[in-house]
């Protein structure tokens, strides 16, 4: 697979390590939980449960052998076709803006 890095252009996927579902960017906020049990459940779900869809999947790739940036890659996991690539920092900023 070739990943179109937003800053560096086309890079071989072998330069990256894979973390998993990009929902891991959205860590539960301990301050917002109404009850400790709810927080435990929220963190259990965050750490352990996955949608694991067959089809379009947003996921985190780390450019370990390159500029060491985190990317959010949108990929069809049934065909390995890469649809879009963004910097994870941009995705995180955008989601914060949205939640405000």
């Amino acid at each position: 697979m070739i990943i179109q890095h937003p800053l560096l252009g086309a890079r071989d996927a072998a330069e990256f390590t894979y973390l998993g579902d990009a929902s891991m960017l959205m860590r539960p906020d301990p301050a917002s939980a109404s009850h400790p049990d709810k927080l435990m459940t929220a963190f259990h779900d965050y750490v352990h449960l996955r949608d694991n869809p067959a089809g379009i999947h947003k996921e985190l790739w780390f450019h370990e052998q390159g500029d060491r940036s985190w990317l959010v890659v949108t990929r069809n996991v049934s065909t390995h076709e890469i649809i879009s690539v963004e910097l994870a920092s941009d995705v995180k900023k955008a989601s914060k803006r949205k939640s405000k």
Partner: protein
Amino acid sequence: MRYSIWSVLKQGLRSNRDWKPAWRDPEPKASYDAIIVGGGGHGLATAYYLASEHGMTNIAVIEKGWIGGGNVGRNTTIIRSNYLLPGNEAFYELSLKLWEGLEQSINYNAMVSQRGIINLFHSDAQRDAAVRRGNSMLMHGADATLLDEHDLRQICPFLDFENARFPIKGGLMQKRGGSVRHDAVAWGYARAADLLGVDIIQNCEVTGFIMESGKCVGVDTSRGKIRAKKTGVAVAGSTSRVMGKAGMRLPIESHVLQAFVSEGLKPIIPGVVTYGAGHFYISQSDKGGLVFGGDIDGYNSYAQRGNLPVVEDVCEGGMALMPMIGKARLLRMWGGIMDMSMDGSPFIDKTDIPGLYLNAGWCYGGFKATPGSGWCFAHLLATDQSHDVAKAYRIDRFQSGAALDEKGSGAQPNLH
């Protein structure tokens, strides 16, 4: 027809005119006592043991494709019970014992060949870990033999013992490990279950579950509704997809694992050998092909094919372990989709939905577990109780903190 030397001779003399299909191709009935979703090795074994051990014969196996077309025909055929943790070792030892009696009980030649498996070690620390693992195996009634370099040179003279970076110091051997012809396992279980009255329904895709007042009472399929008192799902690789239809979200990611076969060669590899300094394992099939594999590709995939970086990585492991392998030509390579769970261990458990049971999360170690998985899943379906050796395989173990992390790599499925 019972298979034996006499049936082979008799049919041979009649120009093999009278062989019948090994199992029927029935239309699905409107309802069953139990249905198993997934006609892979685990599903068929479950159906067979439900019928043979628990007397439940009004049951069906529902398969989207054809028998033998999924992971049961895509693995590297290794059987072993060299696990460490108490929650795992007893289960895999039960499974290995069932392999030993399998061919007699299902009257089918699955070519179970206990030619031994050797896990190599390359350092003092790895040797200590091998001794510990061996002791755990012995305590659970399995067999384990520690080989030093001298012993190993007798068995595998072709290994690169003097490798400068990872010299080979010895290995932990399980003599009762080995390999089995994987297609024959699917066909043998299918035939044996069919003979006991189990309906094996192929080309029938489950499209949803029938829920009535919070209970699962059957499945919607591409061939109509099929009702059942109990529904067991054994579709490793596609578990998230199928259980998603019941609204469940699971601690599983689907990943692709590649496997490789070389051209046929004269006998050279005595059993199964696994590299301790990288992920590479190899055995030789009865046809002579070197069967080998290594790591999963490491990213979510449902594509049943992998990419070249892992091919390179696997071949590098092979070259480091036994340089002679560089002369063999690769004949075929393929990929299969694995349920990678969050701790590398499987699930055999009830779900929160009454009437719905789950068998999943086999990572890339499901083949060796086939008989044990079927045995324990059948026990769960028939009695509503977990089998003694499968008690650790609960779905809620990440909530309770009782994770079963054989490799100790945490909730990172692509590292197990």
